[in-house]
């Protein structure tokens, strides 16, 4: 098991280095950092002096190592667009994205798993078929369209919920939270549903197909023969054995949630990191793009690692063997 963890850690470091290399090339060779820092009337001598001082004449590998050290300390330079430090811009917006993704995950798990269990237990009931059909349509609708339709119904026509922004937030230290005000919680509802809907249908279909498979196995028949209650069989025996692939997919989807938050954030004018990234793409604000890329890369690597380790916690059979088999599709 230790060998497995070490191998996974090495792979993670390799992926991070590759992402770092892409970020570095962006940062260094797309757009000129000097041009962004000085005015138009700066003389060539001054530019050259600045270039030398910043180490831009060093060999590329040396610059890359410098870049990695700075990135590790959260130093990504100044934004081309606002001239603010990139790290501060990201840190200000991070709480909004994390709270949104957290709520969307809760929504996915609290609705997706029970719906999957239900459609798996009663696959031929009309309500299961209806849920299946709706999930197919849900997969075909792009995220931003779902968001727009929700805004149209609940904000523009019914006036029940706000259509943009975070509502009221409370600041605790550097963290701003939506959870402590009614307005803030209301503002979370529509974006969370929009962000989570695609993952909800995914988890539902996955739990359903796993349940269908598990319910045919001998140990379920045996549990019935022992006269256990339906509840003990369905949740204690069946659902528990579907959890390994569900954890894999849910974990990997958490990363996708945070990445896809950029679409939802744009629809709802949600002041998060994703919206910042879209703005930086529109203005080709390279330092922000490079920093966002590194951040997302780190996030995905950590999530992949945690998902792999979770296997051991969930499935005791794996602890005896040398490594976890990759379960489920990527």
């Amino acid at each position, binding site marked *: 098991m230790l060998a497995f963890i070490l191998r996974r850690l090495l792979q993670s470091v*390799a*992926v991070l280095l*590759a*992402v770092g290399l892409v970020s570095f090339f*962006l940062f260094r060779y*797309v*757009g000129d950092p000097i041009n962004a820092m000085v005015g138009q009337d700066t003389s060539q001598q001054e530019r050259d002096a600045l270039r030398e001082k910043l180490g831009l004449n060093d060999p590329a590998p040396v610059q890359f190592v410098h870049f990695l050290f700075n990135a590790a300390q959260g130093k990504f330079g100044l934004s081309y667009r606002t001239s603010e430090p990139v790290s501060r811009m990201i840190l200000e917006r991070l709480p909004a994205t994390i709270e949104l993704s957290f709520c969307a995950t809760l929504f996915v798990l609290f609705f997706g798993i029970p719906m999957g269990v239900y459609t798996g237990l009663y696959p031929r009931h009309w309500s299961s078929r209806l849920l299946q059909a709706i999930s*197919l*349509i849900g*997969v*075909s*609708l*792009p*995220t*931003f*369209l779902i968001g*727009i*339709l929700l*805004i*149209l119904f609940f904000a*523009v*026509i019914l006036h029940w919920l706000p*259509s943009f922004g975070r509502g009221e937030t409370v600041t605790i230290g550097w963290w701003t939270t939506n959870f402590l005000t009614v307005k803030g919680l209301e503002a979370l509802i529509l974006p969370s549903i929009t962000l989570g809907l695609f993952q909800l249908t995914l988890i539902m279909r996955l739990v359903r197909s796993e349940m269908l498979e598990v319910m045919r196995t001998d140990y379920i028949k045996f549990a019935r023969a022992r006269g256990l209650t339906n509840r003990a069989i369905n949740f204690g025996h069946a659902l528990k054995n579907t959890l390994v692939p569900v954890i894999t997919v849910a974990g990997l989807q958490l990363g*996708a949630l945070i*990445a*896809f938050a*950029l*679409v939802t954030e*744009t*629809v709802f004018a949600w002041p998060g990191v994703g919206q910042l*990234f*879209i703005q*930086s*793409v*529109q203005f*080709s604000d*390279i330092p922000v*793009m490079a920093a966002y*890329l590194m951040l*997302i*890369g780190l996030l*995905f*690597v950590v999530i*992949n690692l945690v998902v792999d380790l979770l296997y051991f916690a969930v499935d005791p059979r794996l602890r005896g063997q040398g490594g976890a088999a990759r379960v489920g599709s*990527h």
Partner: protein
Amino acid sequence: MAEWIRRAADSDIWWSFKSSTLTVVAAAATLLIIVLAFLSPLLAPHTPFDPSTLNLSDGLKPPVFVGTDGDWSFPLGTDDQGRDVLSSIMYGTRLSLVVGFASVVVAMVLGIALGLISGYVGGAVDAVIMRIADVQLTFPAILVALLIDGIVRGLISVQRHDEIAIYVIVGAIGLSFWVQYARTVRGSVMVEKNKEYVQAARVIGLSPALIMVRHVLPNVTGPVLVIATLNLGLAIISEATLSFLGVGLPSTQPSLGTLIRLGNEVLQSGDWWITVFPGATLAALVLAVNLLGDWLRDALNPKLR
């Protein structure tokens, strides 16, 4: 020709297609949308992006079946500039389809080429290509496409970017989808290259390139075709998403995604038709293409027969 038609009508695929009503409906819908979109210069009632034909007093007319303000020359209403929504949708669908098809072709050509090389040559070349694929798979495709678009914007001027926006977006989406093809083709090539017919081709002295294209490639067309159909829906959604985010096609040549973005800007005032009709067209198109893709996947999979 007659012989070919008779054989096609007798095949398993045709039979499986005919026996699934949903697939026939999806195929008919896809065909209808494609024909309407590509004949838009002939069929569309207006040319919405020729400013000389626009009249601001026609602006914000509702669809004819809502209330009494509608005008039969604008059956689905008009936007704030007085452009006919129906005509905009027809021209926009054409652009969405072109970008979707083109980016699938780019991804397919790139993926097949890299997959063939990776599987046939093996060794260090294979390792490098597959590690790049692994790293790219770590990120969602839409993020990769956004990143490529951002890099291109950093390298060229804004006006130049608007001119070549359609090529940039095709390239960005194509580059973000190649991995799946490369992996599939590589897997098949590794199986095929040890078979007798490939050895025989090698013995008569054919060049590796010729062996790959003429002998190995025909054996991997099935799975590639399935991935391409399923990817078409994804590519159309990706293009719409990028255009909606404002980094895709500019408002001077709007695709369905651009139309939805423009409509979304005036949605708060309750003029829903500017957004909802392009949105419904996009959803119908993607749903129909996805149904076709699902069917093709099952029909070409011998295990499911």
